[in-house]
């Protein structure tokens, strides 16, 4: 019994050390400094829930933010905006929300869950993606009706709704038994890049992030849909200052430059 107890104490102590060690590693090289960004010296951690199409750019923004604000630890969660809105309404602990459409932001503002007015910080457009070298010879939206299995986002996710808008604008009707719905924009693109979907409709920035694994076919302006991303601090946040610092960073010159480098357009 005593040996067992002693062993338990030792293991517990070791675990504590391990966790403490891991914790301090996560904060990065220690502090020689102060950053020269405004609000330097802020500490704490925030969780940012963002549309899955923001995955790469927010990760890059996070790296840049960390050098400006080393005391703030930013954790990201990326998924379909509609999924995350539902989770936040159910009480998920999120500090900042950046959905791909106004509807999902309104779900939260209507419930009084948002601290200030949401701020538009970037825009995006849609593009058709096909396998490399476009073996199905897809030229425009009208080709999708006869091309085979098409990958779209869920009908109620922003990228799914916008894709439908574009298809409606082009007068193209897809047979639902040929449409596979991805959980989010990344999964939708994955069905074309790694799976057997012949083509799909995703954001321009997703196609860009996917590089050579897909070929992008532009959608003409008269059929195009412009998507505006907004961002807001949520009322349930435990760290208002850090959350507002992140939102401010989106609008800053550095932030806008990074967004542009990933193919995002300025807010419409």
């Amino acid at each position, binding site marked *: 019994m005593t040996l067992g107890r002693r062993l338990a104490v030792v293991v517990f102590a070791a675990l504590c050390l391990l966790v403490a060690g891991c914790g301090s590693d996560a904060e990065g090289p220690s502090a020689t400094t102060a950053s020269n960004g405004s609000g330097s010296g802020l500490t704490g951690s925030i969780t940012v829930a963002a549309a899955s199409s923001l995955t790469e750019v927010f990760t890059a923004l996070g790296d840049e933010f960390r050098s400006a604000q080393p005391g703030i630890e930013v954790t990201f969660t990326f998924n*379909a905006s*509609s*999924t995350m*809105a*539902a989770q936040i309404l159910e009480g998920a602990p999120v500090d900042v929300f950046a959905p791909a459409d106004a509807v999902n932001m309104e779900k939260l503002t209507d419930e009084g869950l948002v601290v200030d007015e949401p701020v538009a910080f970037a825009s995006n457009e849609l593009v058709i993606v096909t396998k490399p070298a476009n073996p199905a010879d897809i030229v425009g939206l009208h080709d999708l009706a006869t091309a085979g*299995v098409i*990958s779209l986002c*869920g*009908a*109620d*996710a922003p990228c799914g709704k916008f894709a439908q808008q574009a298809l409606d604008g082009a007068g193209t009707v897809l047979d*639902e*038994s*040929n*449409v*596979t*719905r*991805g*959980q989010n924009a990344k999964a939708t693109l994955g*069905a074309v890049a*790694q*799976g*057997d*979907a012949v083509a799909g409709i995703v954001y321009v920035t997703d196609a860009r992030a996917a590089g050579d694994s897909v070929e992008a076919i532009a959608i003409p302006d008269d059929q195009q849909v412009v998507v505006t991303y907004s961002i807001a601090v949520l009322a349930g946040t435990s760290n208002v200052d850090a959350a507002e610092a992140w939102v401010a960073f989106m609008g800053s010159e550095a932030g806008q430059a990074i967004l542009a480098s990933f193919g995002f357009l300025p807010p419409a």
Partner: protein
Amino acid sequence: MAVVVLAAVAVAFFAVPLIGLLQRANWSTVWTDLTTEQSLDALRLSLVCSLSAAALAIVFGTPLAWVLARTEVPGRALLRGLVLLPMVLPPVVGGVALLAAFSLRSPLGGWLHDVAGIQLTFSTPGAVLAETFVAMPFYVITVEAGLRSVDQRYERAAASLGAGRLEVFRRVTLPLIAPSVVAGAVLAWARALGEFGATITFAGNIAGRTQTLPLAVYLQLETDQDAAIALSLVLLVVSLVVLVSLRDRWIARA
């Protein structure tokens, strides 16, 4: 006393989520939610695919269980590990593996398409394949255990009385392992019914073709919570029935 308390906690662990779902359900709309075209398609597909997966598990799993339990094939341990792998593998990984093996870009998948016009991805047979992949191990492990526990003297007696091997299997072995076959089939069926990751990755999410109940629940969760919960209740009730009906068999086996 401690045993009772711990057991009560265990019961609560299972009962509380079910009770939560029941009290959250919108009972006034449950019937309409379950009878929309999307819901009926999902229910029909789930039934068809899971039953097909269970049938395939029985047809191919029984001989496999026999090989594992009764033969001295070298590398049996490795074979058993391989067969049980889908139980341990995250379902999405299973789906990715199936894609690697059967997508149109793979050698096998490409050949099937060129020669026989067969495309497994984004098809109902593909959904059945994904479900069988994850469910068959449950059948095999149950029937293998059953075969091991059969007293082989009955079989030897039958053989010494002149019965051929097939007759011995049909009239002596099969009745003796019947509880294991049923238990294994039911487990495999329930696992196939609840499969999500491998199905959505390999067979995609096409309403009416591959959108089984779990996939429909996932999609509905964002837009129509009442419908998602109604569909979830169906899955939960089925799972409960499976567990309750199997309990006695497991105890009898032991």
